[in-house]
């Protein structure tokens, strides 16, 4: 909390008064990626203390969880983190299936993996474009959105929606994929790999980007652990924590992929982790397409009126931003008693106050961009 004592005036050796001042970043600001307000005590261009203020897009998701049946809550899951909507629906649907002991058919699990990984790539592309926009480069945003449109075309053909899908259902999927989707995805993979190489030479190896990101915003392993930061934040600090490998779920154990981890802990490390994750996601999608089993995409005997046995159930997935965990507390009725959504952006942003002390303002914005925040993910 910013207290009056932190704003102080001193007289410098040449007799001029120097004063720290409080400024507001947001809630309407092009660099805050949503409605985040950061109250900052500034000493010139240096941040003395930055305090994020949240709640400007609080949409009562957890309260709505107590107001809707399990199936009625599905559209909400896509809107918590709309860039990574598939994985969030996966988290909720997985929790309900775990509690109801529903067996999801293998074909549905594979398609869930394929669509989640496509979603991860499209989320990282938006992050990449917006991050570079913050740092001052407009061009990568247009390239990123161009690639993203190809993913959205594929997903729109099977789900009907471009952004907030609600494709997964409790027990499986809404509908099956067709050959056009499979061919389109293979074409996309073939076209995306050289594009990622082009991004590396255009942007990642760019001297200006390297000077803006290397050694900026160091976050240690212990800081990540104490704040619960996950995803590319913890992997960019040298800890290979990924829910897909540590608490494997769905069909992930059957694929061969690497968890990119970089030791340095600075913004460049987090950047490199995400760029490499896109390469690994393409690998996973390719293997899933090669091994896609035939069969139904919906479990048998999913009750129309679903009541979970009393107790609490958790399910965690690796979303594009980190660990997303759903905790459902049921009292045996068809409406949950409590739905808790553990979102990665809240834990990732909570370390910003400590990490940004003493930084220059543009460097602090580079740090915030490298954390990859989606503000409705924090406020829910």
């Amino acid at each position, binding site marked *: 909390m910013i207290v009056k004592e932190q704003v102080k005036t001193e007289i410098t050796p040449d007799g001029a008064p120097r004063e720290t001042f409080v400024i507001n970043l947001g*809630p*309407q600001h092009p660099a805050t990626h949503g409605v985040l307000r950061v109250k900052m005590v500034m000493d010139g261009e240096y941040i003395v203390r930055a305090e994020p203020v949240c709640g400007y897009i609080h949409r009562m998701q957890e309260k*709505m969880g107590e*107001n809707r049946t399990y199936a009625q809550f599905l559209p909400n899951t896509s809107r918590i983190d709309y860039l990574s909507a598939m994985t969030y629906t996966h988290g909720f649907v997985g929790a309900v299936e775990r509690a109801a002991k529903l067996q999801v058919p293998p074909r549905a699990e594979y398609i869930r993996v394929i669509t989640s990984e496509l979603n991860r790539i499209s989320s990282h592309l938006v992050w990449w474009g917006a991050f570079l926009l913050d740092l001052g480069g407009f061009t990568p945003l*247009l390239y990123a959105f*161009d690639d993203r449109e190809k993913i959205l075309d594929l997903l729109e053909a099977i789900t009907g929606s471009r*952004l*907030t899908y609600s494709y997964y259902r409790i027990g499986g999927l809404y509908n099956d994929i067709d050959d056009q989707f499979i061919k389109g995805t293979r074409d996309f993979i073939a076209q995306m790999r050289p594009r990622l190489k082009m991004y590396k030479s255009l942007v990642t190896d760019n001297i200006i980007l390297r000077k803006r990101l290397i050694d900026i915003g160091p976050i240690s392993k212990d800081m990540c652990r104490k704040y619960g930061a996950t995803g590319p934040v913890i992997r960019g600090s040298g800890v290979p924590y990924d829910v897909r490998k540590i608490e494997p779920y769905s069909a992930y154990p059957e694929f061969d992929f690497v968890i990119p981890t970089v030791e340095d802990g600075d913004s460049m490390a987090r950047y490199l982790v995400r760029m490499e994750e896109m390469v690994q996601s393409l690998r996973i999608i390719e293997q899933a397409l090669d091994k896609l089993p035939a069969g139904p995409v919906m479990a048998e005997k999913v009750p129309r009126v679903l009541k979970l046995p009393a107790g609490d159930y958790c399910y965690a997935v690796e979303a594009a931003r980190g660990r997303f965990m759903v905790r459902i507390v049921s009292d045996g009725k068809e409406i949950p008693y409590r739905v808790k959504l553990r979102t990665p952006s809240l834990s990732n942003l909570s370390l910003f106050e400590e990490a940004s002390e003493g930084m220059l303002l543009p460097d602090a914005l580079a740090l915030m961009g490298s954390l990859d925040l989606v503000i409705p993910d924090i406020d829910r």
Partner: protein
Amino acid sequence: MEAPQGSSQDLSDCLPYVKFAKLDELLALGRANSLWPLTFGLACCAIEMMAAGASRFDLARFGAEVFRPSPRQADVMIVAGTVNKKMAAAVKTLYDQMPEPKWVIAMGNCAISGGPFVFPGQYAVVEGVDKLFPVDVYIPGCPPRPEALIEGLLKLEEKLTGKRRWPVVKSE
């Protein structure tokens, strides 16, 4: 009395080369073809607004790609996303800070009427941005496609100039 010089007789000779219009119409045409939106993406609709500004859907061909972060430099506020009670004061301040003439486009179901977040007993969402200030164009959808946003801008242009500049796409 003799017709003065520069009378309609002389002027009609110029008609193939000179176009006359009311100043109002010229100003309206200028404003409509260069609407500068305020960067006001609040939630999911903001991503579709960014996609509308990107290469495939390209708002630049309608003169509207220059998103201004400062309300003092913007003509139209595209409210893209849910307006919260905590945020409502800030939204109203931004609207008040925009100089006249200004317009508002409510993009998405949340800006129109609170969207999917309205339920009995809701405590946080403002049910529609028109509870705060007047709205000119409503674009339904959750989120609306970028083409829908472009159609909304064309409707706003039609509201300004009285004419629609792009033909309505008719299905075969």
